């Protein structure tokens, strides 16, 4: 029973703390750039504002336009139910949920791409065409990374992989893990549309990917989109933590253990976020046609990771 409550709590944590994570990133970036920066709670205020605004819908739009953000949001939240956060068990688990998790995120992308095309302007088409490019090239390395870890842990469930990794010695991080982590980091950057693949704060239409897709959106729909994007970032960060550094998750459901787990989770998340902020402040966005090369690096790393599972297993 207690475990069930924890599962729900950790899922809600992923969903509700997502805007905070975004706020922290932009605060950190501001500090690195010697600016004051907005409050870390700003994304919540932004969501609140957008939810209460009037929604403008292009006159060519059909019901797809307004339902796409809702579907994307719902699918992203359900994907959160598969991630272990505080202890190596998730709200929903299935042997093979690594694939289901990725596909749930794909629902959101599919819906948003259609919503963008529904606006009837060329920006939407541009955005969804580029999103299709990034997604198509990022999916294979993502699957390969998950497969590599699944082969090591001999299970296809995210929670089970985390549980297996906890049982390993911290020093026994294998070559597979390092390669897979590098590949996943690139994929995560691409999937969540951060620099150097895409710039979430850009206002230049010709370079945008995700922002071009949502150009026509306003009001509550835009709020849902922003929120789902934030959740997606949180999900991928948590996925990295759960797969590569789950140490600290509490194996028993005790208040003390859970508090410690929450603390270590926050610490690990902070490390990732600082890394992201540093990268975003120091690296320029790639040209559109350099992005495939960047993702090919991820593919090559992921292929190496998978092949190393065979080499190290023998």
């Amino acid at each position, binding site marked *: 029973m207690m475990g069930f409550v924890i599962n729900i709590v950790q899922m809600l944590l992923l969903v509700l703390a997502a805007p905070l994570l975004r706020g922290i990133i932009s605060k950190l970036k501001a500090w690195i750039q010697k600016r004051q920066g907005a409050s870390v709670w700003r994304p919540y205020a932004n969501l609140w504002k957008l939810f209460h605004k009037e929604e403008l819908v292009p006159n060519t739009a059909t019901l797809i336009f307004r339902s796409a953000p809702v*579907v994307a949001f719902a*699918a992203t939240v*359900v994907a959160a139910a598969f991630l272990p956060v505080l202890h190596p068990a998730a709200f*929903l688990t*299935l*042997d093979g949920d690594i694939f289901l998790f990725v596909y749930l995120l794909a629902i959101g992308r599919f819906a948003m791409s259609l919503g963008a095309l529904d606006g009837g302007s*060329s920006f939407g*088409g541009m955005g969804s065409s580029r999103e299709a490019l990034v997604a198509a090239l990022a999916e294979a390395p993502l699957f390969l990374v998950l497969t590599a870890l699944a082969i090591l842990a001999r299970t296809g469930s995210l929670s089970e992989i985390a549980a297996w990794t906890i049982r390993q010695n911290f020093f026994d991080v294998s070559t597979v893990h390092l390669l897979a982590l590098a590949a996943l980091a690139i994929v995560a950057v691409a999937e969540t549309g951060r620099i150097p693949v895409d710039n979430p704060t850009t206002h230049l239409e010709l370079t945008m990917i995700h922002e071009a897709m949502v150009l*026509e959106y306003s009001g509550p729909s835009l709020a849902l989109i922003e929120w789902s994007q934030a959740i997606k970032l949180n999900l991928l960060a948590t996925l990295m933590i759960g797969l590569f550094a789950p140490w600290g998750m509490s194996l028993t459901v005790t208040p003390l253990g859970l508090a410690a787990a929450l603390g270590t989770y926050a610490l690990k998340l902070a490390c990732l976020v600082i890394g992201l902020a540093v990268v975003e402040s120091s690296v320029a966005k790639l040209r*559109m046609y350099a992005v495939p090369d960047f993702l090919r690096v991820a593919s090559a790393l992921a292929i190496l990771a998978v092949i190393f599972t065979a080499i190290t297993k023998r």
Partner: protein
Amino acid sequence: MIGLLLILFLSSLLFLAVFAGLAGQGRWTRAFVPGFLICSLLLGLGIAGSCFLNGRTINLDYSGHLPFALGLSMDRLSGFFLLLICGLGIPVALFSASYAEHYTRANWKWYWSLVALFILSMVLVVVASTIFAFMVGWELMTLLSAGLILIEGDGEDRRRSLFLYLVMMHAGAAAVFASFLLFVPYAPALTLAAMRAAAGSLPAHLRVVIFLLSFAGFGMKAGLVPLHFWLPKAHGIAPSPVSALMSAVMLKIAIYGFIRLTFDILGTPQIWWGYLIVVVGIVTAVLGILYALAEHTLKRLLAYSSVENIGLIFVALGLALIFEARGLPILAALSLTAALFHTLNHALFKGLLFLGAGAVKHTTGTLDIEELGGLLPRLPGIGISFLIGCAAIAGLPLLNGFVSEWLIFKSLLHGSVLEPDPAVPLLIGAVALTSALACACFVKLYGITFLGRPRSDAAKYVVAAPENMNLALVMIAAACILFGVHPGVALHPLSVLAGTMIPNPTSPPEIASISRMMPLVAAAIALLVIVVLLLRKPASRSVNTWACGLPGLTGRMQYTATSFSKPLRSVFAAVYRPERKMDLEPPDEPYFPVNISYRSVRTTSFEKTLYRPIVDGVVAVARQLRRLHTGNIQTYLLYIFLVILSLLVVLRFA
């Protein structure tokens, strides 16, 4: 009893073919023919259901009473495929009732009688228990579909495509027939049962030859790369309901033949068979979807996507063979179930999409997606069902395509954990690439065709779709949702069927686990959607699309299918080998040309480089052979005489 029903079903199809050909053209006939076809297909559905679900078997043998070996038999496997034929046949018949209305009287007659015969021929292949009946059905299937293609005109292009289709199909049929004939010295009669009994006594090298021949023959019919060349051409020009039957059902008959021969009759495979099939399958899948992505004619795009899905099915079949050869029956059953379920799913969504393409053609008059756009508000029923088809084929959860892809991934993962060599996990990457590209491809297809603004008058002034068409599409879309949300309905009987093909497995645990998980996920997503919809402010204001502050945004300013696929095409340019050619006139004055002509080809198919040497070789051999043809009758008589003489010599000394 059920055997009699089967006879009744077959003869009702035959009767309909004759009736449609002879009857007059009153309103009564026009309603009766489709209605009768649907009724007899419902009968077939009943028979199929009782064989597939309850495991009833039928065994009828008329060889004794007839001059040729005609025997019919049914088990779970044929029941499943009969279910596919009849299940898809019903919406196709319903759809055709409206679609065939614009035909001339003669064409209308031809259409219906050929459709009835085409379905009959496919049924015959599935229920045949003798090789004679199988091959008759197999050849008729090709010829009748060719006849149906001719109904919509016989221009030079169509004839050439059709010729290619017939040549490839006959080559395939020859390979299939040869693989059956190799059983002759060992089996007392060419029936499935006798061959199954004889399979154990076949020498090892003969088994290999039989396997390779059947793989080539059935693979050609199924459209495996590099033997897929005919598929987009033939499926692209057939009348849309017939394309639906060809893509959704006829390709699956090849899968039936392959499963029947390899799993049921031959049994005990070798590991390299599985690897061969997996490699061919994955190459087929990746190339198929890449070509689909670059294709902008609705039906040709769908045909290439069929190539992709056939590739995925063969990946799963190959895995099943690998697992069976390694002595892992549970995993083999899992992979075979995945293959069968993907067969079912592909039949559903590809049937839906081809019928949708037919509806688009019927209402707008064009299949070029660059001319379309904004169809969803004009054809709501078709648009929504088509969306479900696109999402299903892209493999999104809550729809049937996801479940079978998940099963394929899961069997690949099992393979990776067990296999010492790293090739199997890399396949996961390849399948993931395929499915991501499929996602991009169908976003393009749906977004450009149904969303945004119309790009031409054809798309703007659309006649309403007839109710029959809407109903046919909605029926299939409902099945896609059912199998996606509650896959257990189909998966449990399919795993029983897989169990009959592979010795002593228990049901794989994945089947129960995914059947439990999908309703949960569906409920969670539905709940969230409802909550959000309730909380969100319903009001919205319609405004002009943002055009950088300028007025007058037109349909031609939108992204086109060409521009949508451009980034991916440039990434995979090595596969597509696009050709661009710009000619200036006069060529010596590049800055003041009188005339500039620009030509670009998005894809130059690699078949050209692959088939050209073969064709050239055949032509060269034919040239040499022509020398034998002197035109003198005495010479021909001499040839005959020499052949007889040499045969006698061979018989004497062999």
